[in-house]
């Protein structure tokens, strides 16, 4: 292929313009390098410095996104086909929402890291570098518009996460968690990449834009495309910790450094959903495998994404909630609860529609994401504060927390009630919105499954709440919690209560971020 000067200038122009939309990622990349170099100086820097560097970079990136909030869709990088710009990344409100989500989650997790006694035993700037690198990967996941970028983003985020999970090199549990994470992760990404190769072969292009046009084109082998997409979905499900690929989740959540567990349960999951939703929306609503192509089956029978996602959703919530019933370790319990929540969120994905009318569905889903952010990070923050003080993670050790540390107990109870989804918390409103969209979308059976699952999950959430408030503790003492930590917990829990009553502006606001 001969590159003419004209075309070269075009390519260079695309690259230069792309750099302008890539500023948050560039900030994070520089921060990763700075954090690595931090570790090399002859003099030991103060342990808080890497945390502040990471915080500054994450804050700057978030600020840049807020200030330059994209009004429409602007493509970044990529190539030109005629006059059509095929981007590698896109900057749109949907991407910006998830980017801010990931950055906010890392900013909440930072104070946890800075207080963790285990993390501060040795030089920590490596850990912050991994945290920022994982966020960078998730930013790319949130805005990728090309199969290659999907793969790169997922791998980038995963690789940083593998190392962060196994960060306590002397600790057997952390190392084993890292090993399990990396083995499951590489298998899942292998399956995904094989699926991506088939998608590429069937559509002849890596751009997600081309997917929709080729899918609806005649002569497309829908069955092959369905198989390929299910393989790709395995990779996404791994990041979301949803049904077929959720086995790693409890072990990794238990063994990883606790701040990183909190981070994985929120940011990693959200990034997985972002990339999954973008991929599904690229197929367009018409994508169905019709069994009428095959003899002997009733007319109109068939399945599409809606059915696949709905099945994954129902199985995720059932698997998560049933396994959570017998957990004695609070981290494992929250891990299974997060698998169940992947199911609830997938329920919202199943009824998404990519056109304007779909903004209702997007609103319900993204509202639930905000609520999930608050309640899960709130719960993990309290668990972190308790673990730092008591050194224990069993539900047993939460007995009598209501008398020992009333503030933390109330905060954790609010988060658990919200995770369960009963009023007056944001979790209730979020679930209500989701369920009404699901019923409207025609998946009544899924709503029934979700209802049954909520009832099942009441058992283990209330088991913990009972331990906190009704049971007697062996040891009544509890070291004091600093005012800054109380403020942080309050900042997570108070909006949860406010969203339970005064939700309309936020649920209106989230409708604007659809694809």
């Amino acid at each position, binding site marked *: 292929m001969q*590159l003419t*000067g004209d075309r*070269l*200038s075009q390519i*260079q122009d695309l*690259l*230069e313009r792309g750099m302008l939309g890539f500023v948050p990622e560039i900030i994070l*990349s520089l921060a990763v*390098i700075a954090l*690595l*170099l931090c*570790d*090399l100086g002859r003099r030991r820097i103060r342990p808080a410095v890497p945390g502040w560097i990471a915080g500054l970079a994450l804050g700057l990136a978030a600020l840049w996104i807020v200030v330059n909030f994209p009004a429409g869709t602007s493509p970044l990088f990529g190539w030109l086909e005629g006059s059509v710009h095929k981007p590698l990344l896109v900057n749109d409100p949907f991407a910006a929402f998830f980017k801010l989500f990931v950055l906010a989650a890392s900013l909440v997790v930072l104070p946890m890291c800075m207080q963790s006694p285990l993390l501060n035993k040795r030089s920590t700037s490596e850990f912050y570098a991994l945290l920022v690198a994982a966020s960078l990967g998730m930013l790319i996941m949130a805005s990728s518009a090309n199969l290659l970028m999907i793969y790169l983003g997922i791998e980038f985020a995963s690789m940083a996460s593998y190392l962060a999970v196994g960060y306590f090199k002397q600790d057997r549990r952390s190392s084993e968690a890292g090993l399990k994470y990396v083995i499951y992760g590489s298998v899942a990404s292998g399956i995904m990449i094989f699926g991506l190769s088939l998608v590429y072969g069937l559509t002849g292009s890596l751009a997600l834009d081309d997917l929709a046009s080729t899918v609806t084109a005649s002569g497309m082998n829908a069955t092959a495309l369905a198989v390929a997409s299910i393989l790709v979905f395995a990779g996404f499900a791994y990041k979301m910790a949803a049904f077929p690929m959720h086995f790693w989740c409890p072990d990794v959540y238990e063994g990883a450094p606790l701040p990183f567990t909190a981070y994985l349960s929120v940011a990693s999951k959200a990034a997985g959903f972002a990339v999954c939703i973008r991929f599904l929306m690229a197929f367009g609503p018409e994508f169905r495998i019709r069994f009428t192509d095959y003899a002997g089956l009733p007319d109109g029978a068939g399945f599409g994404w809606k059915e696949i996602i709905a099945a994954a959703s129902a199985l995720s919530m059932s698997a998560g909630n049933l396994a959570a019933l017998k957990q004695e370790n609070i981290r494992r319990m929250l891990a299974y609860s997060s698998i169940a929540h992947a199911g609830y969120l997938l329920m919202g994905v199943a009824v998404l529609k990519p056109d304007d009318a779909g903004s209702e569905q997007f609103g319900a889903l993204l509202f639930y994401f905000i609520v999930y952010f608050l309640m899960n990070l709130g719960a993990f923050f309290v668990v972190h504060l308790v673990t730092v003080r008591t050194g224990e993670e069993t539900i047993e050790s939460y007995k009598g927390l209501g008398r020992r540390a009333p503030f933390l107990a109330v905060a954790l109870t609010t988060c658990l009630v919200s995770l369960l989804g009963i009023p007056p918390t944001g979790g209730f409103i979020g679930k209500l919105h989701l369920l009404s969209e699901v019923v409207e979308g025609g998946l009544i059976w899924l709503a029934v499954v979700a209802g049954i699952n909520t009832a099942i999950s009441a058992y283990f959430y209330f088991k913990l709440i009972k331990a906190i408030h009704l049971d007697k503790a062996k040891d009544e003492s509890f070291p004091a919690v600093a005012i800054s930590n109380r403020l942080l917990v309050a900042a997570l829990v108070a909006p949860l209560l406010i969203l339970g009553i005064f939700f309309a502006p936020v649920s209106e606001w989230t409708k604007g971020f659809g694809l």
Partner: protein
Amino acid sequence: MGFQYANVLFGLLFGVAFVILNVAVLSRILAPRIKDPAKETTYECGEPAVGSAWVRFDMRFYTVALVFLIFEVEVAFLFPWAAVFHHFSKIGGLFAFLEVFVFVAILGVGLVYCWAKGDLEWVKSTSSGEAAVVPPAPRGELRAP
């Protein structure tokens, strides 16, 4: 069409016959047979063979191998860039050059990090700054799987 494959078949038959003749027949007739215990041992570059081949290698080999693996493979990114760079040099090419410079610089940071952390040294220094005396690699036998 089918006739062309007759050449292949003939060549194959000839080859098989040639090998059988040389290895099984001629060598028995011509080669002298003197038994020697040294002949029975495994050839290890002229060194006397010690122990089984299933020894456990020193961990330090793995660390060096991992570092090598990463840097060697990353360089593969430079080949596609090199293939198109001369096109870009027509319009100045500063941007394309800077991009790859940034890439190599990031690799350089990785190398410096590795170096400063002491992962490239054979005897890795401990955090106290003194060179740790690393015990020789275990030569114990490992069960064959």
